C-alpha cells in the first residue's frame, strides 16, 4: 500500500476518522496482539484490520497484492517456528518432526507480524500526514517532530515515482536487471538503488531549502489551520481500539489467574 492518495475526510471508512483516532487504533491493535499473543487473538485482530480496510475502500485483491512480501516473510516465520519448536503433541515424526506447539507458535508469530504490518499500512493509507502533524502539535508535541513524520511519508510516493522512472530509463538504455545470481544482484543494486538514493539525497536537500524558504522554524509554534474531521468513524476507531486492548488485557489476566 502507498501513502495516502486521498485526503482524509474525503473518502470512506477510516479516511473519515480523525488522524489521532487512527493513530490510537493502530497503537491499540499492536498493543493487543502483544498483550495476548496467540492464534485466536492474532486472527481476530487480522480479521478486524481486513474488515476496516474494505470499509475504507480498499479492494481485497489490492490489499493482498500490497502485502505480498509481508505475507511471504510471514510464511518464512511460520515455517521456521513450526520446524524448530517441538512442544506438545507430535503430528509428524519423520522425516521432520512437527508438533502442535510448533504450528501454534509459528502461526502466532506470523499473525502478529502480518497484523503489525497490515495495520500500519492501513494507517498510512487512510491518514492524512499533514492533519496528523497538526493533531500531534495540538497535543503538545513540537511541530518539528510532527513534520519529520510528514516528510517521511512524503518520501514514500517520491521513491515509488523515482523507482518507476529509473526502471523505464533502464529499459530505454537496454540495462537488464535481474536477481538470478549474486553478480546480477549487485548489478541491479548499482543501477537501480544507487540512482534512486542519490536522487533522494538531492531531494532532501532541496526540500530543506524549500521549508526554510517558507519560514519553517521561524517561531516556536505554528498555526494549525485545518482540524481533523469530526465523524462517527473517529468514535468507531477509538471504540475498536479500546475493545481490542480491553479484551486482550482481560484474556491475559484470565490466563494468569487460572
Amino acid at each position, binding site marked *: 500500500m502507498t501513502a495516502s492518495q486521498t485526503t482524509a475526510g474525503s473518502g470512506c471508512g477510516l479516511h473519515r476518522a480523525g488522524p489521532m483516532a487512527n493513530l490510537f487504533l493502530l497503537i491499540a491493535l499492536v498493543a493487543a496482539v502483544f498483550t495476548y499473543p496467540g492464534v485466536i487473538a492474532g486472527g481476530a485482530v487480522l480479521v478486524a484490520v481486513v474488515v476496516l480496510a474494505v470499509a475504507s475502500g480498499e479492494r481485497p485483491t489490492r490489499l493482498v497484492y500490497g502485502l505480498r512480501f509481508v505475507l511471504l516473510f510471514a510464511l518464512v516465520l511460520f515455517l521456521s517456528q513450526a520446524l524448530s519448536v517441538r512442544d506438545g503433541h507430535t503430528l509428524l515424526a519423520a522425516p521432520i518432526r512437527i508438533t502442535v506447539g510448533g504450528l501454534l507458535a509459528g502461526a502466532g508469530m506470523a499473525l502478529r507480524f502480518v497484523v503489525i504490518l497490515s495495520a500500519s499500512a492501513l494507517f498510512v493509507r487512510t491518514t492524512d*500526514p499533514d492533519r496528523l502533524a497538526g493533531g500531534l502539535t495540538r497535543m503538545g508535541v513540537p511541530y518539528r517532530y510532527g513534520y519529520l513524520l510528514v516528510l517521511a*511519508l512524503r518520501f514514500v510516493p517520491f521513491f515509488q515515482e523515482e523507482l518507476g522512472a529509473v526502471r523505464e530509463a533502464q529499459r530505454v*538504455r537496454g540495462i537488464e536487471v535481474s536477481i538470478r545470481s549474486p553478480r546480477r544482484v549487485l548489478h541491479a543494486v548499482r543501477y537501480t538503488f544507487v540512482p534512486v538514493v542519490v536522487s533522494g539525497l538531492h*531531494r532532501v536537500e532541496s526540500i530543506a*531549502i524549500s*521549508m526554510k524558504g*517558507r519560514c519553517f522554524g*521561524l517561531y516556536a509554534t505554528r*498555526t494549525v*489551520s485545518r482540524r481533523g474531521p469530526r465523524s462517527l468513524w473517529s468514535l468507531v476507531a477509538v471504540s475498536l481500539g479500546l475493545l481490542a486492548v480491553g479484551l486482550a488485557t482481560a484474556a491475559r489476566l484470565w490466563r494468569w489467574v487460572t
Partner: protein
Amino acid sequence: MSSSERFDIDIRELSVHYPDREEAALTAVSERIGEGDVVAIAGPSGCGKTTLCRTLSGFVPAMIPAEVAGEIRLGGASIREMAPETLATRIGLVQQDPDAQICTLNVWQEVAFGPENLCLPADEVHARVERSLDALGIAHLRQRTTTTLSGGEKQRLAIASILAMEPRVLLFDEPTANLDPRGIQALFVTLSDLVRGKGRTLVVIEHRIDALRALAPRLILLDRGRLVDRYPARERLDYALLGLRGAWAASPANAPAGPPRLRVEGVSFGYDQSLWENLSFSLRAGEILAIIGPNGGGKTTLLRLLAGLVSPTMGDVVRASDTRVGFVFQHPHHQIFERTVRQEMQLERPSGGASIDEELRAARLSGLDDAAPLSLSLGEQRRLTVATALSRRPNLLLLDEPFIGQDRRNVLWMISQIHGMIARNGAVVVVTHDIPLARALADRVLYMEKGTHICGSPDEVFSRLRERGDGVFTPEAWT
C-alpha cells in the same frame, strides 16, 4: 523593519565561490534593485543566475556552503545577519524545480504551509490560500494529492505557495519552464497585478525572455559570473543578437519523407479517466513531429506509449520492424547511472560507430570525461543524455521537453542533433511548450488536450487552434 519601510536591494561587489568548483560562480556583481522594480536576469547556462537568486534569498551560504564576499543590503540592513527563514518573510524564492519545492502531500496544505509557519490566524491562512489558488487558476486542484499533479500543475502550486506568504520581493528561477502557454499568460497577468497593484519587486530568471515582454522588465545580462550588460525597461531588444532565446528562424529539416516509422491506430489511454481516445497518426522517416498542448494533456504519456514503456487501453502502436528507439526524458538525472561521464557513455554501448571522444566533442563535453555526471549543469546533463541516446544509433528519437532550462546555444545544439537524426533517415518526436520553436522546427504538429487532439501541418493545426479560440498556442501570441 516596519511595513512602511522601503525594501530596496543593494548588491555590492558580490562574489560567490563554491568549494568544489575552480571558478567563482559570481564575481564582483553590483546592482541596485528598487522596490517595485521588475528585473529579468538572463545569460547562458551556468553563468550564475541561480546562485545570485540563492544568495539574495540567504540560502547561500547559510544552507549551501560557499565563500561569499561583498554585501547585499535589503532596506538598508545586511542580509548576512538574517537566517533564511527570517529573510523569507521579505523575499520569496520560487525554485527552478517545482518538485523540489513541494513539502507536503496535499495541494491545499502545501499553499497553507508558509502562512502557517508565519503564525497567521487560521482565517487569514484560509483567505490567503484561496486567493493564491485562484490567482494561479488551480482552485479546482485544492483537494488533490501533490504527487498526482503534472509538471505544469506543480509549477503553479510552487508559485501559489510562495505568493500566499505575500513577500515584498519575489524571486522566480525560470517560472515558465514547465508551464504551458496558457499557464505562462495567466502567470504574467498575476505578476503584473502584483507589480502594478501591490508594488511588489520582481526578479525573474528566464531563458525564454520573449515570454517576459508583457512585464517590460529591466534586463541584466550575466556571463561567467560577471554582470556584463544592463538594458533599461521597455527597450526593444533583439534577443538573438544578445545570445538569448527569442524568435527562431524556420529550420525544418526539409528531408524527403521516407518509409513509415510508426503508426498510432485508434489509441485510447487513461489511468482512472481517459486521457484521450481514438488517437491516430503516423510518422515517416525524415519527419519531425512536435507535440504541444496544455499541462496534464498526456504528452509525456504518449511518448512512453510510442517507446513501448506502457500499453494503450485500446488501439495499437505499430513500429517498423527495424525501429530502434532513443528516448530522452524530461529530467536528465533519471537517465544517469554511472560515476563518470566516460563510464556513462560506455554503458550498454553498441560496438562500432564513432568513438566516445568524438561523441563527447560533438556534445561539447570534452574535458569532462572524469566528472561525475550529476555534478554537471542541467544543460550539460541534457547534452550527455542526448549523446548516450544517440550512441545507440536510434532511428526514432523521442524528446520530452528537451529545451527546458536550456540557453540559446544549447537549443541550437539540440536542433543540430535533431537535423542530424533526420539526415540519417530517422524520425523525431519532440514535446515542447515553446510554440515558436515548434513552428520553426516541425514538419507536423500534434496538439493534445484532455479529450481532444488535432494533428496536421503546422499551418493547419495553428489555424484550427485560432478558430477555436486557443490563439495562445499559436506562434503569433509569442512574437
